[in-house]
């Protein structure tokens, strides 16, 4: 390990190139799988395993360096900048999908329904299609009836009426996730006060809430597929619903996993000090970020759905 002045410049490292290989094999396997090649899943699995292994090594190295005191305050700031802008890039990823939802609802569907100067498409191609959201009857169904290839959902996930609020699953999902944002903040406060027991307790509770959210989400998907006729290919409504909630769910899964790792690090290894806990803080930032995305989803996908 070499230290350049006050800034720690790490020695040569095998991690980056092996990580590149792992990432490559993962996507190469995925592409082969999707294109129907029987070797695809194996390549994907090996690549994913290699990638996970490298990440494990990489994070261990960073943690060890920090514990050994090699990280100057300046280097720690670099990690803070890194995580902050990484989260911003995630925000922009979701922006693409929210943007698609807004565009479809504001422009594409009314035009397909015959509104405005682009409404000619209704007359010529999709005669009979009525502009509505959620789109229950797709343009394809309006024209081709039972022969349609793209059918709309049987039921939507939109908010029905105030009376059913207490039995409405997305409402409870919101409660669970909002609460978890508060508990992770309590965990942070506890750590700041050197209250290890409180930290573990609140953090453990946050992880539990995260898992509970995922269970509720799985239940919702099950209902959608099994009883509501709402699937990924149910026209544009199914598309936007599952892509937005699905990517959010994937991020909640990752966030829960990150918090779980932090929980285990604290519980088993006694990591984190009141003034040195950026691993935990970055995971909690990520958690707040997925929470904010959920609020957007709750409003635009469920309430105004």
């Amino acid at each position: 390990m070499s230290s350049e002045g006050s800034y720690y410049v790490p020695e040569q490292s095998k991690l980056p190139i092996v990580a590149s290989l792992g990432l490559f094999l993962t996507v190469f396997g995925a592409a082969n799988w999707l294109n129907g090649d029987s070797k695809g899943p194996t390549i994907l699995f090996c690549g994913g395993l290699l990638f996970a292994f490298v990440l494990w090594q990489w994070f261990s190295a960073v943690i060890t360096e920090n514990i050994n005191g090699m990280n100057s305050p300046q280097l720690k700031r670099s990690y803070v900048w890194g995580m902050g802008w990484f989260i911003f890039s995630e925000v922009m990823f979701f922006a693409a999908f929210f943007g698609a939802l807004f565009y479809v609802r504001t422009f594409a569907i009314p035009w397909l329904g015959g509104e405005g100067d682009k409404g000619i498409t209704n007359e010529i191609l999709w005669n009979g299609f009525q502009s509505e959201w959620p789109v229950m009857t797709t343009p394809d169904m309006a024209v081709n009836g039972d022969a349609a290839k793209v059918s709309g959902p049987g039921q939507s996930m939109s908010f029905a009426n105030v009376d059913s609020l207490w039995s409405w699953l997305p409402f409870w999902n919101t409660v669970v996730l909002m609460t978890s944002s508060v508990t992770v903040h309590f965990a942070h406060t506890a750590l700041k006060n050197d209250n290890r027991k409180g930290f573990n307790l609140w953090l453990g509770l946050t992880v539990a809430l995260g898992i509970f959210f995922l269970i509720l989400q799985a239940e919702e998907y099950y209902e959608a597929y099994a009883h509501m006729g709402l699937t990924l290919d149910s026209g544009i409504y199914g598309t936007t619903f599952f892509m937005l909630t699905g990517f959010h769910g994937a991020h909640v899964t990752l966030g829960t996993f990150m918090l779980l790792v932090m929980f285990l690090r604290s519980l088993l290894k006694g990591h984190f000090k009141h003034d040195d806990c950026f691993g935990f803080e970055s995971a909690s930032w990520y958690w707040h970020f997925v929470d904010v995305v959920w609020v957007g989803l709750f409003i635009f996908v469920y309430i105004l759905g």
Partner: protein
Amino acid sequence: MAHGPAKGITRWLFTTNHKDIGTMYLWFSFAMFLLGGVFALVIRAELFEPGLQLVEPAFFNQMTTMHGLVMVFGAVMPAFVGLANWMIPMMIGAPDMALPRMNNWSFWILPFAFAMLASTLLMEGGAPNFGWTFYAPLSTTYAPPSVTFFIFAIHIMGASSIMGAINIIATILNMRAPGMTLMKMPLFVWTWLITAYLLIAVMPVLAGVVTMMLMDIHFNTSFFDAAGGGDPVLFQHVFWFFGHPEVYIMILPAFGVVSQIIPTFARKPLFGYASMVYATSSIAFLSFIVWAHHMFTVGMPVAGELFFMYATMLIAVPTGVKVFNWITTMFRGSMTFETPMLFSVAFVILFTIGGFSGLMLAIAPADFQYHDTYFVVAHFHYVLVPGAIFSITAAVYYWLPKWCGNMYNETMGKTHFWMAFLGLNLTFFPMHFVGLAGMPRRIPDYALQFADFNMIASMGAFLFGAAQILFLFNVIATIRGGKKATDEVWENPEGLEWTVPSPAPYHTFSVPPEVK
């Protein structure tokens, strides 16, 4: 390890050194430049005469697509990241990039991504053939199976770009030497800081749009399918929300390079430093609200056409500020015309031509005539070739003596310049004429009246290609030997990079310099 590079191949595979990684980026980019150049020469050879003679139309489409993708993502972007790696730490007095391991990861993703992209040429059904803009439904419903590999290649090179951008932001904001305030930073650093923000903001959107394609192709979603309530035009909106800032990603660092070089050879400080910073920021901001000027003919409400037309024209204002600054910097300077300066002066003139044809294209009603003609091809090649490519070339000549300690051969450099200058104008200027006369882009055959201009363009293209071989030869010769360069290399150039020895030691600024 603290005192020098490791021996053998592991130096490159496992390195955490910003100079090594910068070197790898630059060589990788040059390799991709040659590959993309070969694709371009296939196109120009086919278009040498009317009629189909060398390649099948299907293969021609693969060539236009792969040429664009390889040049944008493989040649131009990595070249600028390579320059950033080499120069930013030295310019701000930092020991290295902020996150050195992630830096190496960003690089090593690229060879894998491009190997995967290039391998699509050998796949059944051929490589992507839908143009580098990959409009749906050409790239979804009607795409060859290799599109899946293309999508994942875009995903991982996007990850590489985002990590590279995060690294650059952390380096610039966190690693400056004491006294190096933001408004003292060299313009190359400033333009890269702003570029990095553009990258972080739009590469995830690109990832989003290719993900939508992937879902439409393999999981029957309806993003771009009107039958299910989606809209193919949605693809264009999301793509160009990425695509327009992307073209500034390829030109802002070029502005930075030229703003370093012109003051050195005009022997005057840059005319308006602060106005350059503000102009760059303005251009970056505007780049987010002009995307639909690529889509004037696709069917947008009139309010949209007008908004995007006026917003686009606004960009001419900060760009004009920049051109004004470069010219006033040269005005009454003691100018000399070494190779980097030649490329930079050509940059100012030819980029302005590209900017003016851009202004023509910005006029929505006029664009109905120009859209998808060779005029558009002429326009964006005038901003990319003498813009991005010339500035990268100028940067290499300007800093090569600092990198390897030897002076390049000036005669060969000037020959390279004049061949490239002549070649590119012969190639791209006639395209304005055939475009205005109605020759569509992306076709392997054309009407007889376009024959003469196309023949000139093809000859120019081969001249331009030959010039790059001379460039390669000159660079290799300089690395292997030549007149020793002084620490300053040029006459009183400004900047911290000229205070360290030539060649720059493996580790610079272990102790931060004091900037007054």
